[in-house]
């Protein structure tokens, strides 16, 4: 216990890495997921097919397997060897999370009444304009709760990289547990609280967004 508090800088550093990982992965996953969702609802058959295949393949693969690909398989064939571990972690987590983002958004897109898109097309908007100005703003609004869930799951999923060389929160938890075998419960609790705080920030952000966008409706 004293060990944890006398080395609290290590705990904070570990959670800071978790925050960095979650933030970078979240941004990357939102961008990639939005692109995938647009491809899936778009008019081009090839892109629809590519996006659907990606979603099927990646969503049905455990994150651990994705990490094995990024951290072991890719470097063994000469890819990503010079890439910093933080970026490798971001790649693995965001590639894995993107299909969940895409599907959350797609449910939002489907919630936008068809007449809206038809009306936009009728006044001559291209598919891109249609998505940007009419469909996606409404779709995001409807997708906030599932997107928040996806991002929360993603934040907790970053713990998987603890066994792939990144000294983030879960890695540090195991470090302390190893050194203080008689205090395991308390150490688990401390780190669990850390995760809860991080995740609660996302929840609060989502609630805020919902409230704001509700007023605009």
């Amino acid at each position: 216990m004293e060990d944890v508090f006398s080395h609290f800088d290590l705990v904070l550093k570990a959670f800071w890495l978790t925050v960095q990982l979650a933030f970078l992965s979240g941004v990357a996953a939102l961008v990639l997921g939005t692109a995938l969702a647009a491809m899936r609802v778009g008019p081009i058959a090839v892109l629809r097919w590519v996006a659907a295949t990606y979603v099927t393949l990646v969503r049905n693969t455990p994150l651990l397997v994705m990490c094995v690909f990024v951290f072991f398989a890719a470097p063994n064939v000469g890819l990503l060897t010079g890439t910093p571990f933080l970026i490798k972690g971001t790649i693995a987590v965001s590639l894995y999370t993107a299909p969940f983002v895409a599907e959350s958004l797609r449910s939002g897109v489907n919630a936008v009444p068809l007449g809206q898109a038809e009306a936009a097309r009728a006044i001559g908007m291209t598919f891109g304009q249609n998505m940007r100005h009419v469909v996606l703003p409404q779709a995001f609004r409807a997708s906030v709760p599932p997107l928040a869930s996806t991002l929360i799951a993603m934040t907790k999923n970053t713990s998987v990289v603890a066994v792939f060389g990144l000294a983030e929160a879960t890695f540090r938890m195991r470090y302390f547990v190893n050194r203080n075998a008689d205090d395991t419960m308390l150490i688990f609790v401390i780190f669990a609280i850390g995760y809860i705080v991080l995740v609660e920030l996302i929840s609060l952000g989502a609630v805020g967004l919902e409230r704001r966008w509700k007023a605009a409706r």
Partner: protein
Amino acid sequence: MRLNRLKVAAAAVLVASTLAACGDAGNDDDKGIEVDVKTDAASQFDEGTRMRELADDGNIKIGVKYDQPGIGFKGATDDAPAGFDPEMGKVLAASLGIAPEDITWVETISANRESFLQKGEVDLVIASYSITDERKQVVGQAGPYYVTGQQLLVKSDSKIASLDDVKGTEVCSVTGSTSLDNIEKAGATPRGFDTYSECVDQVLNGSVDAMTTDGAILLGYAAEHPDELKVVVDPFSEERYGVGYSLDHPEMCQWIEDTIKAAQDDGDWAKAFEVTLGKSGVDTPEPPAMDPCA
């Protein structure tokens, strides 16, 4: 190597460990040293000792590592584990009149060595088993039969030559090991992985600058890739490998130490080293002096 239970449990569960490359240890070209199996060994031990029982049975169960090349390694198609630890096991068994093929090898991992000894699942543990005061509370440990220490495994063309050079570099080891903590204190960025083979892969493909753990384990990996890898830096910790036995049979300590001392004196110890850890090109060290049995 002190690994926590959580780590081992995670290691067992993680797919990663099964996907990690296993290397090509367990060569068929040499089967280790020829041991001189004693005939009529049972009569040399007093009635009622564990050695007498084992000699009468003609069978002994020895726990070794199956995943540490050079120390104790058993490939999927190998009949018996190979390495310095199994060689020591053969020497000990031979003194009881038990031929190598009559030894029952049992895989022990870091986390189950004490319990296997206490429950009698194995008679001896020879599994890169560092002698520590904590362990001596629950099991007997005779030796050391080999002394190693934490070192670094780097690529042959690496610039790392001393412990000071690791500052600012990325060094991997097994998550939860004391080696990883030590290298972090030396100023390196620790990269924890679940198994040693994953960590070696990271060195080989250039993702990290070095790997650190007991020199003996590193030598085994260097022996697998003699052209690509080398072991550097003088040992900066001391790990004294001992033979584990059950505290129910304290008389085993003297027998273990006498037998290994004899092997050190007649050159079997050195030969065992040459055909296992010595394959990395390192010189055979002086055999360590053993602690007196209590």
